[in-house]
């Protein structure tokens, strides 16, 4: 089935992002001073690339120092807040998966296996079953490793178009095809009469808005909702097509592989993140769940170069730049519509929005890409982690013969893992004395 080969496509980038975020968190346990220095360097680099429109160096220095003091006060409170910001999407994803598993029988029915797991588990002896599941897990893991290395190689050699195309294809698949199947099965479960025209309209709208939100710009909540939905869809596919022992084995081996790939100096994911940091680029924004909007959506920016940079650093810069230049040439009202301007004038008095005034506003440190207020710095979690947790909880609830206690227990265990993995400083402060500088470095790094 063509979908099976495509299924590997979304799998790898999603794994990368879990590692990327894990790496961000482990990194700050290393030399935190170096990280802080890197971040302030990055701010100065950003200035050079006119992201903050030629902000003078001294401002950055003051901002960094003030930042450190504020950080020490606010880190603990916002460390806990960030953990809660992660609880909510992870919980939502798990709730969607468990609700679907418990109600829609399609996802617990055995309809064959993926081509990555060719060995069946319907064997006569337990030993044979164990052997088959080990072989399945081995094949799956090697596929994952190969894809990871391929992705890292592509990224290193700046084949951005290939990666871009890969991501677009996988999101298209998830948003259109998998959600179509999901919708169909939900209708079958609840015996809802439906015609193809309505379904086509619904799926078309859902998919197109999803592509726009995820790959371009959109309201933050909508983007988060879409990322949660595609993670849930992906997790449901895994729960359906992976046989039981294989699934548990893969989950276990993937955790081990994650640790190795992220912590080893030659690990592919570590190399990926380091390359991204060297190049001052954000890592695949379409595949990381972020709790805040890092880029300004309606920024009135004269320089198309900077506007592209702040959002799609890995994407092709030429075509969008031409478009933006045309827009700016047509109506230099800073992108504000007439009605909006009138409303604003009514509320706060007339303001002339000229390129100079806009440049002056952008020169202020507060609305730069890396916000100084720690409250606005969000946390980022790779979608691979969402999928991993949801597969865990979903498999537990599917196989536990309808017992809700198992599902609840898995859910609480995963929340605790979230707690400890994504705010190591929080747990460290609970167990040992943690240095506040490492916490602020983590908060800073999570804003990149």
């Amino acid at each position: 089935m063509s979908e099976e080969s495509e299924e590997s496509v979304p799998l790898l980038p999603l794994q990368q992002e879990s590692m990327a975020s894990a790496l961000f968190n482990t990194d700050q346990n290393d030399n935190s001073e170096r990280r802080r220095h890197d971040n302030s360097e990055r701010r100065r680099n950003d200035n050079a690339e006119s992201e903050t429109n030629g902000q003078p160096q001294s401002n950055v220095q003051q901002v960094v120092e003030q930042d450190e003091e504020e950080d020490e006060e606010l880190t603990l409170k916002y460390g806990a807040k960030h953990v809660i910001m992660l609880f909510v999407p992870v919980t939502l994803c798990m709730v969607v998966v468990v609700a679907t598993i418990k109600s829609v029988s399609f996802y617990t029915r055995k309809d064959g296996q993926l081509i990555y797991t060719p060995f069946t588990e319907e064997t006569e002896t337990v030993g044979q079953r164990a052997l088959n599941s080990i072989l399945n897990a081995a094949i799956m893991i090697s596929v994952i490793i190969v894809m990871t290395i391929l992705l890292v190689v592509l990224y290193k050699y700046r084949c951005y178009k290939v990666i871009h195309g890969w991501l677009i294809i996988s999101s298209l698949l998830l948003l259109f095809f998998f959600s179509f199947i999901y919708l169909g099965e939900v209708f079958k479960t609840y015996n809802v009469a439906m015609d193809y025209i309505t379904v086509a309209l619904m799926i078309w709208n859902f998919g197109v808005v999803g592509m726009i939100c995820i790959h371009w710009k959109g309201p933050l909540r909508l983007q988060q909702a879409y990322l949660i939905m595609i993670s849930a869809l992906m997790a449901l596919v895994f729960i359906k097509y992976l046989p039981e022992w294989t699934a548990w084995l893969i989950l276990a081996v993937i955790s081990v592989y994650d640790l190795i790939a992220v912590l080893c100096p030659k690990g592919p994911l570590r190399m990926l993140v380091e390359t991204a940091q060297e190049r001052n680029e954000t890592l695949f924004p379409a595949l990381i769940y972020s709790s805040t909007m890092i880029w300004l959506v309606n920024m009135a920016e004269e320089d198309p170069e900077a506007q592209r940079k702040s959002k799609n650093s890995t994407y092709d810069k030429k075509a969008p730049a031409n478009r933006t230049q045309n827009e700016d040439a047509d109506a230099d009202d800073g992108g504000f519509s007439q009605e909006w301007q009138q409303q604003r004038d009514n509320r706060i008095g007339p303001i002339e929005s000229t390129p100079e005034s806009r440049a002056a506003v952008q020169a202020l440190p507060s609305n730069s890409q890396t916000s100084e207020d720690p409250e606005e710095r969000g946390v980022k979690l790779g979608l691979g982690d969402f999928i991993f947790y949801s597969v865990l909880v979903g498999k537990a609830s599917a196989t536990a013969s309808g017992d809700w206690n198992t599902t609840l227990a898995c859910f609480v265990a995963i929340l605790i893992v979230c707690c400890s993995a994504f705010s190591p400083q929080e747990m460290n402060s609970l167990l040992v004395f943690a240095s506040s500088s490492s916490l602020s470095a983590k908060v800073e790094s999570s804003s990149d």
Partner: protein
Amino acid sequence: MTLAVFFGCTFIAFGPAFSLFIFTIARDPLRIIILIAGAFFWLVSLLLSSLIWFIAVKASNPQDEQLQKGLLIFGVMFSVLLQEAFRFLYYKLLRKAIEGLVALSEDGCSPISIQQMAYVAGVGFGLMSGAFSMINLLADSLGPGTVGIHGDSQLYFLTSAFMTMVLIFLHTFWGILFFHGCEHRRWWEIAAVVIMHLTVSGLSFCNPLYVGSLVPSYLLMVGAAAWAYLLSGGSAQNLRRFLLCLRSGASPQPGS
């Protein structure tokens, strides 16, 4: 059974606990983390005690009724002791956490006090214990069936919901009492908590004579509530002021 039974039992069992959660815990992320960690500690204690019980059951003769009943009683008592042991472990962990929080804070005092942590830990234990008791029941109540059609009590769902509610409250108050006892080295308070817990769990063997298990549990809850209130700095005077809505300082709240 009907949706009415489902919603009724859910709100009876979890209504007060969720109100406590929403009004006192949901705002502060640190408290939410302590809640979840408390729930996790209770979960681990249950896992260990159920493992012991499971091994004991598998190793014994399944035909012997008396033995199985005896093993069940043993399992319950062992589980109670293990839960209290894990409450003590959680107390130790939170003590260390307070020291860490104090070291990290600017002004040398922790953003959350040990009494607040005791309350939140109690709610965490209680919510998890209640959830484990009720969730399968609630899921079954959504399906078809008649309660007690084979001659058992028809009030099973309702009494389970009431028992869950009282147990959640009891865990909250026991948390406060236990931590206070540990803080001030009053071992008799800790012993009182353990004995109360054993009593309430032992009384559940009176079921289906529900008056034998529910009424004493509620009486014990009232007693524990009053004790916890007094230990948290409340007094008859505070209560009078609160009830008469007199404004002379902070109104009494549990564990703050």
